[in-house]
């Protein structure tokens, strides 16, 4: 059941009715039922695999709690300090074993589907729920919170349909209170949720799908489009992906807003980032946070890595010694992030491009600062900020192109054409630059992207968008809403190259 389809529209309507007709105390019960219905629409077999992960990680959480309680009671009853220490060490050892077994089974399932090609299908959202479930287990192991005792509540969380297809990577402690709390229906919340859904549809159907049509024509190695068209790819790929992915997030966040549930935000105006490092704290935020908490920290703080750093103490500068654990961990993080996106080597290369940018930015920071000082450039300088934002944007665009072309020869051909193909004069003729798109499409794209930019500028300035909309007189506000709705209906791209599904669904 696609998020942009009539059956899904009916699904949301029935969900709202069922949710708000329930007594507040039992509203949360509606969620697992609709999660199941939503998931079943993608095939009943996939449910079995989701159930395996669900039961496994639920049982693991309970076991971890019981281990904690058991050794906690032993330590409480014991007066000897040494014995207490032993109990603590035993507790950590037992918990670690439980967690490792659970994580192993959890990730083996994911690995089998994602990397081996043994199965002809992949359960919907397996990359998302595997990682969410793993995060839950690690958090319980670390004692961040107690495991959920109620299986249905845990099932509601893990299979929560707004996050299971493309994320966000929700955390149990962040979602549980808002997911299980009852609330009355609010007209204001419904209105705000609906407009966010329509805005998400606008981004997806009017902007992303329209741009995808041009990208699909330029991107193939043998497309015949090189030179200025490749540079164009660097520019339009990030915008297209942003409109597609954040459009999806707006739709699911809008649905959650209507239910009064706060979903973690996954984007924070990424194109205002001034470095790749900052970019990844603004783009797909919850994925970055997952890798930070469950891979970056454990690797960088592991005994092995800390020992490597300690051994270098007398051989390298103190600054480099302190950075070594981060560099080693970042290598693992970006290799894993690349492989999470796809099993082919170009995704790995994509990860390493990001790694290179981040590490070089960290390592050469003092050098850059000296150069900036000599040129009298300050951080507040607007031109400098614009340059940094444009540089970050283009690097991201280049990396995206690498991830979209599955052969090294294809990437080389595209990059070489930037220099060898003499068609840069076309930059002065924008109407000829976008294959597959007519003047009408370009005008619609221009207006759509401008709207997206204005909204992001307002958000960057911490303007409360809902509050701002609420201050507009009712007539004009609803005129705007209706216009946006009709724009989606009338201007939604339906050409032969229309993208259809969301880009991130494949992960």
């Amino acid at each position, binding site marked *: 059941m696609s998020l942009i389809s009539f059956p899904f529209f009916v699904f949301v309507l029935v969900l709202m009715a069922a949710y708000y007709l329930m007594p507040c105390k039992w509203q949360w019960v509606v969620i697992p039922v609709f999660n199941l219905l939503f998931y079943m629409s993608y095939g009943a077999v996939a449910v079995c695999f989701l159930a395996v992960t669900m039961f496994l990680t639920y049982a693991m959480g309970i076991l971890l709690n019981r281990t904690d309680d058991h050794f906690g009671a032993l330590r409480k009853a014991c007066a000897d300090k040494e014995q207490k220490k032993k109990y603590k060490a035993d507790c950590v050892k037992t918990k670690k074993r439980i967690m490792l077994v659970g994580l192993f089974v959890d990730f083996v399932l994911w690995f089998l589907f994602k990397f081996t090609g043994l199965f002809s299908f992949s359960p919907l959202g397996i990359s998302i729920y595997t990682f969410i479930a793993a995060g839950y287990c690690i958090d319980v192991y670390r004692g961040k919170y107690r495991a959920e005792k109620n299986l249905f509540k845990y099932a509601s969380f893990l299979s929560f349909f707004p996050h299971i297809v493309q994320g966000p990577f929700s955390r149990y402690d962040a979602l549980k209170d808002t997911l299980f709390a009852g609330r009355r229906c609010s007209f204001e919340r419904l209105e705000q949720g609906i407009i966010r859904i329509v805005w998400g549809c606008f981004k997806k159907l009017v902007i992303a799908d329209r741009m995808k049509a041009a990208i699909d024509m330029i991107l193939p190695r043998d497309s015949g489009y090189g030179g200025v068209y490749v540079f164009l790819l660097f520019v339009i790929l990030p915008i297209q992906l942003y409109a597609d992915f954040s459009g999806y997030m707006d739709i699911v966040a809008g649905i959650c807003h209507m239910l009064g549930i706060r979903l973690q935000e996954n984007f924070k105006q990424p194109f205002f980032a001034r470095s790749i490092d900052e970019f990844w704290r603004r783009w797909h935020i919850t994925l970055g946070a997952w890798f930070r908490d469950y891979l*970056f*920290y454990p690797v*960088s*703080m592991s*005994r092995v890595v800390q020992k490597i*750093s300690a051994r270098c103490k007398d051989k390298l500068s103190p600054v480099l010694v*302190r950075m070594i*654990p981060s560099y080693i*961990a970042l290598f693992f993080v970006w290799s894993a992030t690349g492989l999470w996106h796809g099993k082919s080597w170009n995704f790995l290369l994509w990860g390493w491009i990001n790694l290179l940018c981040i590490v070089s930015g960290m390592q050469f920071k003092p050098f850059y600062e000296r150069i900036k000082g000599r040129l009298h450039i300050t951080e507040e300088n607007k031109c400098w900020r614009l340059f940094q934002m444009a540089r970050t944007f283009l690097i991201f665009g280049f990396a995206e192109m690498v991830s979209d072309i599955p052969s090294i020869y294809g990437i080389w051909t595209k990059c070489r054409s930037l220099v060898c193909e003499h068609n840069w004069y076309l930059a002065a003729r924008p109407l000829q630059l976008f294959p597959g798109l007519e003047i009408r499409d370009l005008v619609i794209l221009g207006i759509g992207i401008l709207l997206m930019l204005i909204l992001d500028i307002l958000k960057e300035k911490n303007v409360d968008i809902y509050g701002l909309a609420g201050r507009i007189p009712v007539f004009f506000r609803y005129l705007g809403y209706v216009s946006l709705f009709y724009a989606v209906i009338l201007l939604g791209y339906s050409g032969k190259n229309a993208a259809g599904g969301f880009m991130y669904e494949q992960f």
Partner: protein
Amino acid sequence: MEQLQKILEEIRPDVDFASEDRLIDNGVLDSIDIIAIVTAVNNAYDVEINVQYLLPEHFNSVEAIYRLICKLQDE
């Protein structure tokens, strides 16, 4: 305490560690800073800060980090 403050100032010379008591909550330190601090503290004080201790209350101020070091040295 003074030695610790000196270590922290070497890592982030732009931060006033003496007066700041919400280093994590206010986003003053990022994950890279935290790891640099952990590595420097592990080397200087011969302790082992592991992931379980990565909580804001242990890294929000110089005093908090110092308390964590004392706790680990006692264990």
